[in-house]
Each structure stands twice: as structure tokens, then as C-alpha cells.
């Protein structure tokens, strides 16, 4: 068969929506019991785990002290690593890389299985991956949230303890790590994968296999990091400071390997997003016409790809310290306890903006829709995101102001850190400018966006306090910091995620979220979020360090207030899950094609979205967000026969 013949049959097959037995049909697509899905993945992962454990024991069999130490980290590491590889092998992620060795370059991309089981398979459709990510991220969030409830339960009383001190540290560490890992993907994964191609008028991602791989690595990373608990936990918090890291028990391996695995997933996700945005924009979509959410994802992708390799290297060194006994982080053997701090925060600070920029993007994307105004100062917004991304590589030592490194550099890092608030401030300029004399429709996504501005303002202003070295002396390492980053990450990113879900779920699933329950959810989440975390600023100023199981008795009142609010905040998430299940599954209400009257390209395709997204590759005609001009040309020409501005007319 010549290539052209093969191609034409494939096109026909795709068009008619029926699978066909083409050469190179991979195992993923085979129907029946021989297909690869999450169950085969789990089975092969377990086999890999056992094999890795045996191999690790075999490798270390010549070293008595490892065999006798009661914690064979080589076996543990290899078991988990082989388990991850087995998971990927079982889901079918490695079929293509193996086939490539034999020169194969054209496996099927569409999953011929077009029923619910495609969500449990290695799917190359970015819309399936997006929904997989939604569920994955919510599971992640739920696990971390439960651990947060445990943390607040322990802090109800300063002297009577619900958990033993080591259990408490394990819970705190697991909560922090799970949340930080989840938050790096919370928007890029679900909403980025789902909507970036739709927003730029592309029919696909640049590297759909890498995209799918990033999701399945994300799930594997989640399981690895969760495996820390049965392994006995790790005592270092999410920052994993060495040499405590080197001292810790086998649970630490789960942390290091989990972060490295998730790191690979983050790199791949960012890589795919960046390449897609750069190369797959529809004709006519110049850089000044790119939707602002896509700008934010591009800036985030740049950070993901360039900062995460440093974490990967740091984690690798940590694993070597724990397995083959190198001494990267052990001062007495020629290493340095500062090395991890530097590597970690060189990744860690850009990571903080990985967790802020997509939130800004969603806020700026949603605002014009509900204000019926063009986005104010679009270019400033895009410049702000790029500025934040660039500057974030030069601020990491503000985490180390009291560590004794480079005291003379402190004014410099204070300056760079405070400079970041200028581009961050652009987002407020954009938001406030857009609101000016607008007609503000207070739908639920808009409420979440307004709450984001409220919360992030507090988070940002306290960030300036933290970057000021004299004030940092008082607040570093205390509850003030803790409250600050919960205000920026939870108050910013998680509120943005909720806004994005309420906004886009109708397009993703064709069903509306219930408005009444949604309002209850919003107000509970907003009020109790602030009641939980605002007292923590005061608790921090009054001298309570982070991650302690006992504290001064005079702080019990504030801590209890915060704890009770936290439980109610947790309840608000149950309301959200209730709404999600009720509206999406139990008693769905069919969504209109464009419930928010958005001009965004993602709303202009057919519903449900066909596998190829657009009938024809759209041509972008004008700037986005021209909401104020009646009769403005439509954003894109979809070439589907109708008048070019049909979509805008239908809105009025």
C-alpha cells in the first residue's frame, strides 16, 4: 500500500467516525479485552513494582549495611520507578515510542472506542485529556483538602493532640506536597489542554501523544506521592529541605521520586502547550489577537519547561543521596545544606507564578464576557504576564533572606521581588479598567473572578510585606507566610479554576451547573476562605511558626476560629461536588450553545465539539473582545457557510 492510499483511507475512516483495521492499529485502539486501559495499566504497574523491588534487592544484595538497615531505599526507589514505567506501559503510552524504533511514524490518533471508556484510556483527543485532567485534578484536590482538615483538627488545641507529632508532620507534608503538585496543573491541565486549541483555532495539539503522556504521568506521580503514607510518610514539608530529607525514612523516596515524576509531566505539558501556541494559531491570529488566557498559558508553559528541569535535577541528587549515598546535601561530606535550598527555590519561585499566571489569564478572559466591554489594556496584560514570567527567575533568594546566604544581595532580591508587583499590578489595571462603566453581569463565574481580585489583592500586598527584609525577619517561617500563599494560590488560582469550571463546563459537557447551588457554593467558599486564612495573618504576627503541633495557649482562640472556618470551607467543597454530580449526571440541565454570549472562538464551534474541533480551519478576522461595538465583525470566520458575523448577531 502506498502512503497516499493509506492516507486517504484513514481520512475516510476518521470522517465517517468508524474504526477500521488499518496497519499499525495500536493496542490502545483494539477493542475487547486486549485493549489497553486503566485496568491493564494498574496490573502492569503492580508487576513493575514487584519487579523493581526484586531488582533493587538484587542490585544491593552485596551491601550488607543496606540489607540490614531496615530501609532499602534502592529497592523502594526502583520499585516505584518500575511501577511508574509499568503504569505507562500498561496504559499504552509507550507503544508508540517502541514502534518508533522500527521506523513507524503513523499510528492512529483517534480512539475508535467512542463511548465512556475512552476516558479510561490513553486518548489522543485533547478534549478527552482535558476532561480526564478535570477529574484527576479534583481527586488530587479532594485528597489534599482532607489532609488540610486533619491539620486544622490537630490545631484545635495547643496541648491536647489528636495526632502524634510525627503523624502530624506527615499530614502537613503530604497536604503541602499534594496541593503544590496539583496546583501546578490545575488550570494548564484541564482547561489549558481543553481550550487552548479551541481558542487558537487549531484542530489538535502539536504533540498529542506528549499531551496524553503528561496526563498519565500526572496520575502516576499522584500515586507515587500518595505512596509516601504507607511507606511511613516524610517529615520535611513540601519544601523537602535537606539534610532533613537525607535523614528521613523511606517515605522521602516517594516525595523525591513523586516530584521528579510530576516534574516530567509538567515539563511535557508545558512543552506541548508552548509549541502548540507558537505554531498552531489559526491564520490571522497574530500575537496581538491571541486570547489573553492563551497568553497566560504561554507564559506558564515557558516557566514549566524551563524551571522544572532544575527541580528534576535537585530531586535526582536527593534520590542519589538516599540510595547510593552521595553527599550533595550533607555539609560534613563536602556537600552543602544550601544547595537544595538554591535548586529548590530556583524552581520553586517560578513555580509560584506557574500557580498564579493561569488564574490571571482566566480572570482576564472571563471579565469582558460578563462586563460586555473589551478587555482594557490588552497589551499591558500580555506584557504583564511575560514580565512576571521573566522576573520570576530572579527572585528565588527571597525565600532565603534569613538563611545566611549572600547578605549583601538582600537589597537586590528585595528589589527584584518588589518589581514583580509592577507586572502583577497590570492585572489589576486590566481588571479595574474593564469594569469601568461596564454592565456587570453577576453570574457565578464572574463572582469567582471578582473574589479572585479581592483575595489576590490581600495576597499580593502581604507579599510586599514579606519581600521587605526587616518585616521578613518577623514574619518569615510563620503563619503570616502560610496565609499569604494560601491567599495567592487558593484565593487566586483555585477561585480562578472554579470560575473556569462554571464558565466552561457547559461547553465541555453540554450541561449547565445549577445556579442556586453554585451561588451557595460561591458564598460559602468566599466567606469561609477569608475567615479561615485572614486570622492566620494575625496568628503569624503573634509568633506562631509553621508546621508546629503545639503553640502558645493564648493563640487558641484565633486558631479555633480558623479551624472551624476551615471545616466550613471544606463543606463548601462538598457543596461543589454535590453540584457537579447533580448538574452533570443526576439531573442535568441542557446548556444553550453559548450561555454567556461569549465571542470567544471556543464557543463558536459546534456542540458537542467534533473530534476535529472545526469544520474548517477558522480565519481570525479581528481583535478579540469587541463586546462594546454592535456590528463589529466576528472574531473569526469559521467558513461554515453562514455570514461572517452570524455568531455576534445571534447573541443579541
Amino acid at each position: 500500500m502506498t502512503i497516499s492510499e493509506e492516507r486517504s483511507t484513514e481520512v475516510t475512516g476518521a470522517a465517517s467516525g468508524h474504526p477500521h483495521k488499518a496497519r499499525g492499529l495500536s493496542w490502545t485502539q483494539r477493542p475487547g479485552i486486549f485493549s489497553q486501559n486503566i485496568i491493564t495499566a494498574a496490573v502492569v504497574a503492580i508487576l513493575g513494582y514487584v519487579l523493581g523491588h526484586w531488582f533493587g534487592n538484587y542490585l544491593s544484595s552485596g551491601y550488607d549495611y543496606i540489607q540490614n538497615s531496615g530501609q532499602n531505599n534502592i529497592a523502594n526507589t526502583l520499585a516505584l520507578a518500575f511501577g511508574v514505567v509499568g503504569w505507562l506501559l500498561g496504559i499504552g503510552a509507550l507503544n508508540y515510542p517502541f514502534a518508533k524504533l522500527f521506523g513507524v511514524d503513523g499510528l492512529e490518533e483517534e480512539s475508535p472506542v467512542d463511548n465512556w471508556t475512552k476516558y479510561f484510556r490513553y486518548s489522543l483527543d485533547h478534549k478527552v485529556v482535558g476532561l480526564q485532567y478535570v477529574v484527576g485534578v479534583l481527586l488530587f484536590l479532594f485528597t489534599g483538602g482532607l489532609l488540610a482538615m486533619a491539620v486544622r483538627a490537630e490545631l484545635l488545641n495547643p496541648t491536647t493532640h489528636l495526632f502524634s507529632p510525627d503523624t502530624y508532620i506527615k499530614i502537613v507534608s503530604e497536604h503541602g506536597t499534594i496541593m503544590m503538585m496539583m496546583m501546578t496543573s490545575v488550570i494548564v491541565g484541564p482547561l489549558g489542554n481543553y481550550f487552548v486549541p479551541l481558542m487558537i483555532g487549531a484542530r489538535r495539539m502539536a504533540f498529542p501523544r506528549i499531551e496524553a503522556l503528561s496526563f498519565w504521568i500526572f496520575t502516576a506521580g499522584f500515586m507515587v506521592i500518595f505512596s509516601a503514607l504507607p511507606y511511613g510518610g516524610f517529615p520535611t514539608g513540601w519544601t523537602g529541605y535537606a539534610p532533613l530529607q537525607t535523614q528521613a525514612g523511606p517515605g522521602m523516596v516517594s516525595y523525591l521520586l513523586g516530584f521528579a515524576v510530576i516534574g516530567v509531566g509538567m515539563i511535557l505539558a508545558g512543552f506541548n502547550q508552548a509549541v502548540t501556541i507558537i505554531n498552531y494559531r489559526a491564520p490571522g491570529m497574530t500575537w496581538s489577537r491571541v486570547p489573553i488566557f492563551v497568553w497566560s498559558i504561554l507564559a506558564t508553559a515557558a516557566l514549566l519547561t524551563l524551571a522544572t528541569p532544575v527541580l528534576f535535577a535537585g530531586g535526582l541528587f536527593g534520590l542519589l543521596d538516599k540510595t547510593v549515598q552521595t553527599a550533595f546535601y550533607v555539609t560534613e561530606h563536602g556537600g552543602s545544606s544550601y544547595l537544595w535550598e538554591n535548586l529548590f527555590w530556583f524552581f520553586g519561585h517560578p513555580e509560584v507564578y506557574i500557580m498564579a499566571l493561569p488564574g490571571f489569564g482566566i480572570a482576564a478572559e472571563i471579565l469582558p464576557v460578563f462586563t460586555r466591554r473589551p478587555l482594557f489594556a490588552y497589551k499591558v496584560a500580555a506584557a504583564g504576564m511575560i514580565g512576571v514570567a521573566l522576573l520570576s527567575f530572579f527572585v528565588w533568594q527571597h525565600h532565603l533572606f534569613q538563611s545566611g546566604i549572600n547578605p549583601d544581595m538582600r537589597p537586590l532580591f528585595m528589589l527584584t521581588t518588589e518589581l514583580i508587583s509592577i507586572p502583577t499590578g497590570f492585572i489589576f489595571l486590566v481588571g479595574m479598567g474593564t469594569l469601568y462603566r461596564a454592565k456587570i453581569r453577576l453570574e457565578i463565574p464572574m463572582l469567582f473572578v471578582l473574589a479572585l481580585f479581592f483575595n489576590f489583592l490581600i495576597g499580593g500586598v502581604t507579599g510586599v510585606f514579606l519581600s521587605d527584609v526587616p518585616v521578613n525577619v518577623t514574619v518569615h517561617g510563620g503563619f503570616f507566610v502560610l496565609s499569604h500563599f494560601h491567599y495567592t494560590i487558593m484565593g487566586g488560582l483555585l477561585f480562578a479554576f472554579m470560575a473556569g469550571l462554571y464558565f466552561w463546563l457547559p461547553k465541555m459537557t453540554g450541561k449547565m451547573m445549577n445556579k442556586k447551588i453554585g451561588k451557595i457554593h460561591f458564598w460559602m467558599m468566599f466567606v469561609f476562605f477569608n475567615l479561615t486564612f485572614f486570622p492566620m495573618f494575625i496568628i503569624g504576627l503573634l509568633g506562631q511558626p509553621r508546621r508546629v503541633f503545639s503553640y502558645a495557649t493564648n493563640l487558641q482562640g484565633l486558631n479555633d476560629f480558623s479551624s472551624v472556618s476551615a471545616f466550613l470551607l471544606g463543606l463548601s467543597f462538598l457543596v461543589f461536588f454535590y453540584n457537579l454530580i447533580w448538574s452533570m449526571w443526576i439531573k442535568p440541565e441542557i446548556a444553550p450553545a453559548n450561555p454567556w454570549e461569549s465571542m470567544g472562538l471556543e464557543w463558536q464551534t459546534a456542540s458537542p465539539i467534533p473530534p476535529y474541533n472545526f469544520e474548517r480551519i477558522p480565519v481570525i478576522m479581528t481583535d478579540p473582545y469587541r463586546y462594546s461595538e454592535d456590528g463589529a465583525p466576528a472574531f473569526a470566520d469559521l467558513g461554515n457557510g453562514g455570514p461572517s458575523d452570524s455568531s455576534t448577531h445571534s447573541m443579541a
Partner: protein
Amino acid sequence: MSNTLKSTGPSDTPEEREYEMRAHISSIWTGSRLFIGIYTFMLASLVFSYFYLRSSNNGLLWRPDHVTAPRPYGLLVFGFSLLTSMLAYFGRKRLVKGSFSDFSVAAWSGVGTGLLALLFQILEFSHLGFFPGSSGYASCFVGFAVMNIGTLVISAYWLETTVARGMRIRRELSGDNPEFSSHPRARAFRADVASMAYFQVFVALTGALLFAMFYLM
């Protein structure tokens, strides 16, 4: 990854096909450059650790008695790795000139030398001559060796997959040289080979730098 065309929708005009083809080829270009960026940041972490520990010299244990990892192994690993890069690079030059068979001979030899480098890099662990935790240098060296295993695997894998793909395309094009074909798969193949050769130059340059740091300095 030249399967761009398969996810096209019902409308499948030549213009759209060409548009997606170009996006695909520039994705290969962008992606490989971005990959080099990713790899640079990872190697930079190692270089940073090396110089950080060297300048800290904690406990006077950066490198007591100036221990060095076995140079013969280092030379073998670096030499074979360099040979792989050069074979890939010059193989591609021959391909551009039109000689597919030269390319395929060079590339398969390159895969062979790459695997040899990998073998020696792994064997070197059994002849280190120092305990991994005995000094800062020893730790960094183990880190370097592990990363180098990754680099060698990636470079050999990329070289192997391009040449295997080239041969398959050639067979399916009934012997046409993929270098001169305007078939989409051949075009994607050329972009892939160019990116691979570019990456091999990067591997050679960073390899030389790391070799100097760990075996000569």
C-alpha cells in the same frame, strides 16, 4: 509524528493540509529547540552544583587529594559520544547532499558508538575508586554519570528512530530518496533529521564542557 493529516476534519482542502503540514514542521523545529532549553536548565543545575560545592569546600571535602574518576573510561565515554554526534551531524550533511545510504551507514554506526558509550558509562560505576559520599566532587560525579546515561540514551534513541523512519519511508516511497520527496512524511522526516543533528551538536558541546569539568579540571 508526521501524522498531522489524520485529524483533519471533513473539510480537507489542499490549503488546509498544507497549513497543518507547515505547523507540524515548525512544531518539530520549535519543539527541538525548546527541548534543548529544557536540557540546558537541567545540566545547568549540575554545573551550578559543581561550582557551588567547589567554592564552598565544606569540611575541606570538595575534592581531597584531587581524586578523579577513571580517565580511561571518561575518554572512552566522551570519545564514543562525540563520535555519535559527529556521525549524526555529518550523516545529515551527506543526506542533504543526496546520499541516503551514507546517512544510513553513518547513523547506524552512530547508534553503535552511542550504545558503546552507554556501556562504558555504566561500567565506569564499578571502577570509580571513591565512595559516592566521600566528597563533593564524588557526589557531583555520580550525578553527572547518571545524567549522562540519560543523555546518551536520548541521543542514541533519537538517532535510531530517525534512521529507522528514513528507511521505512524510503521503502514505502519505492526507493525514492526522502530527501528529495515532497511527500508530507518525507518533509516531516527532514525536519526531524535536522532537529536531531542540531541536538547532537548540543550534546557534543555540553559533553565537552562536562568532560573538562569532571576529568580535566
